[in-house]
């Protein structure tokens, strides 16, 4: 694609943003006195800020670029990541799981596993999570630098060093609070930077009706029914009827249940934001408040991709085309920015894009330094030190976490496959985790051995399933079938991922129950108070005004989500 030329006004906007990011870190530095200030913001964050940070931490490269790309590639069905997956999962974590996370005073998700099960379950989760966050942050950095190289002609090294230095500075100074504040800043930047793009794009294609008409052409051209790109549920009766290549069961069970609940309910990256809230009610309201803007995000991140493919498919030739003739979906959002925004607003759009990449990195780094310091360093390497010692370790972990991310970013430029493989391994580890939490929180009979070996078996099941199946058109190897035989071919990678998750979750669920029944309980009812549903006193919200109660919010959020699903059926 042709490079974008930035004017002085665009650089000025970027400069103002960087000044604010660093200024926030600088102002917050004097509030960091203990390790809990650094890793958990001293549990002092109001619900609305924690809520916006909860979704912003996840709003990294994968979301902004990836959801735009999926919007172009799969159309309206991409909304299932929000209206079927994320929102119900966020309601679940707020209503049912937060009482245990926040109430147990655990400082991290692995620490909850230690309290509920045992040290080995915590260790397994802590180590895989720590490695995963460092690599995610590295991938975010790599993606940002590659993108800036491509669209602005900036050197790869400059982008990596600049983004690493800024993220390092503001986390080092202000810890999690700094990361959270900047995530909220980024949230507003994304909304304000992308909304004019969406409005201009929609006006250009002739509104929603013009867009659906153009998308019908795209769909029939690709050999699907006319509405395949513009409806979310209508073409799910068979995998061959929609571009995503899934049928309703695989979608609802794989994406809606296992993957989404697994991510939003157990990933410390997001849960950490709610743990930083200033009260139990605030912690429970965090994901619920987050769900409200989250359900509107498809407008900002998916719609630009849909507009891009509509313009591309009806003669615009908007997107750059790969050598095999398919459009480069990953460039949908950057191309749209360059296509519609004039100098001035372009600066704001690019700033929003960079902000999202950087807060994605920062989210990973803050989660990494907490898990490293509390769950690995304090519990295995140097226990029993003073709080100031662990605070220093937190600062130090921030530095080496970012250094490792830089290394990962450079590794990605040379060995693309290694990162793909690692991501695959993490997917295997993460898929079964939700079964462990579900059983741990709602069945007191679940034992430490059951949880640990159940997780291992679930992970193995994911790997075995992936090793025996292949997405359509792929060659055996990283994409699947690494055992040599192909038992089944899925229509798409997406379908393969969903089914891998379903197998992993079911295997972990069954194995954890079986092993728990065969082993002795390692925690008494007394020790499990506050950690398991049946042994925890019910929270009563009578003292809160009815419209501020988590339950009221939950009903409202689910109702609105249902309406959205029906409108775009």
């Amino acid at each position, binding site marked *: 694609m042709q490079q974008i030329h930035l004017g002085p*006004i665009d650089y*000025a*906007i970027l400069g*103002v*943003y960087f000044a*604010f990011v660093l*200024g*926030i870190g600088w*102002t*917050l530095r004097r*509030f960091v006195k203990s390790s809990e200030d650094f890793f958990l913001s001293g549990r*002092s964050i*109001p619900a609305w*800020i924690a809520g916006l940070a909860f979704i912003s931490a996840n709003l990294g490269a994968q979301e902004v670029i990836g959801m735009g790309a999926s919007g172009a590639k799969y159309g309206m069905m991409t909304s299932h990541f929000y209206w079927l997956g994320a929102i119900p999962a966020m309601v679940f974590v707020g209503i049912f799981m937060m009482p245990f996370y926040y109430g147990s005073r655990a400082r991290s998700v692995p620490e909850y596993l230690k309290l509920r099960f045992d040290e080995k379950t915590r260790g397994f989760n802590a180590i895989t999570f720590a490695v995963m966050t460092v690599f995610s942050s590295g991938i975010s950095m790599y993606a940002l630098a590659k993108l800036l190289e491509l669209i602005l002609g900036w050197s790869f090294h400059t982008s990596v060093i600049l983004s690493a230095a800024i993220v390092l500075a503001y986390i080092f100074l202000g810890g999690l*609070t700094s990361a959270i*504040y900047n995530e*909220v*800043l980024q949230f*507003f930047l994304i909304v*304000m930077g992308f909304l*004019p793009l969406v409005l*201009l794009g929609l*006006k*250009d294609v002739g509104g929603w009706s013009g867009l659906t008409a153009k998308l019908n052409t795209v769909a029939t051209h690709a050999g699907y029914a006319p509405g395949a790109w513009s409806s979310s549920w209508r073409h799910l009766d068979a995998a061959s009827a929609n571009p995503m290549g899934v049928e309703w069961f695989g979608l609802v069970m794989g994406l809606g249940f296992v993957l989404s609940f697994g991510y939003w309910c157990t990933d410390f990256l997001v849960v950490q934001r709610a743990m930083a809230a200033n009260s139990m009610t605030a912690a429970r309201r965090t994901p619920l408040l987050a769900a409200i803007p989250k359900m509107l995000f498809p407008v900002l991140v998916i719609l630009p991709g849909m507009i891009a493919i509509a313009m591309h498919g009806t003669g615009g030739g908007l997107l750059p085309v790969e050598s095999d003739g398919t459009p480069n979906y990953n460039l949908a959002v950057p191309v749209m920015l360059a*296509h*519609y*925004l*004039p*100098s*001035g*607003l372009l600066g*704001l759009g690019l700033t929003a894009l960079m902000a999202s990449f950087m807060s994605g990195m920062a989210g990973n780094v803050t989660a990494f330094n907490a898990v490293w310091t509390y769950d690995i360093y304090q519990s295995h390497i140097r226990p029993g030190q003073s709080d100031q010692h662990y605070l220093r370790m937190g600062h130090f972990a921030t530095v080496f976490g970012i250094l490792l991310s830089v290394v990962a970013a450079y590794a990605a430029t040379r060995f693309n496959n290694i990162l793909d493989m690692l991501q695959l391994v993490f997917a295997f580890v993460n898929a079964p985790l939700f079964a462990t939490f579900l059983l741990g929180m709602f069945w007191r009979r679940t034992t430490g051995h059951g949880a640990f070996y159940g997780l291992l078996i679930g992970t193995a099941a994911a790997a075995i399933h992936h090793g025996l199946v292949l997405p359509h058109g792929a060659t055996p190897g990283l994409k699947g079938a690494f055992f040599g035989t192909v038992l089944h071919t899925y229509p798409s990678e997406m379908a393969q991922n969903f089914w891998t998750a379903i197998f992993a979750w079911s295997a972990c669920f069954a194995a954890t129950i079986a092993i728990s029944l065969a082993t002795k309980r390692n925690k008494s009812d007394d020790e499990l108070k506050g950690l398991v549903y049946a042994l925890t006193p019910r929270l009563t919200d009578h003292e809160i005004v009815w419209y501020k109660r988590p339950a009221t919010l939950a009903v409202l959020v689910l109702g609105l989500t249902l309406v959205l699903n029906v409108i775009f059926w």
Partner: protein
Amino acid sequence: MKLDLRLPIGLMFTIFGVMLTLYGLVADPAIYARSLGININLWWGLVLLVFGLVMLGFALRAQRGLKSSDTHSTSTP
């Protein structure tokens, strides 16, 4: 609260709003061929300005409220 987050948000968007509005007034209109002939810098600049000022307003009101309740509580023995 340690630092009222609405303060930096309001300040930053007010600055962005002023920058874009002014740029919209002076820049060569030819650049708006991309944005369907709309002077989007001017219009969106004004939107950002309003958003920024509203945020600032909330932050300042909260601060004043905090101060007056402080003096109130110290004045009662």
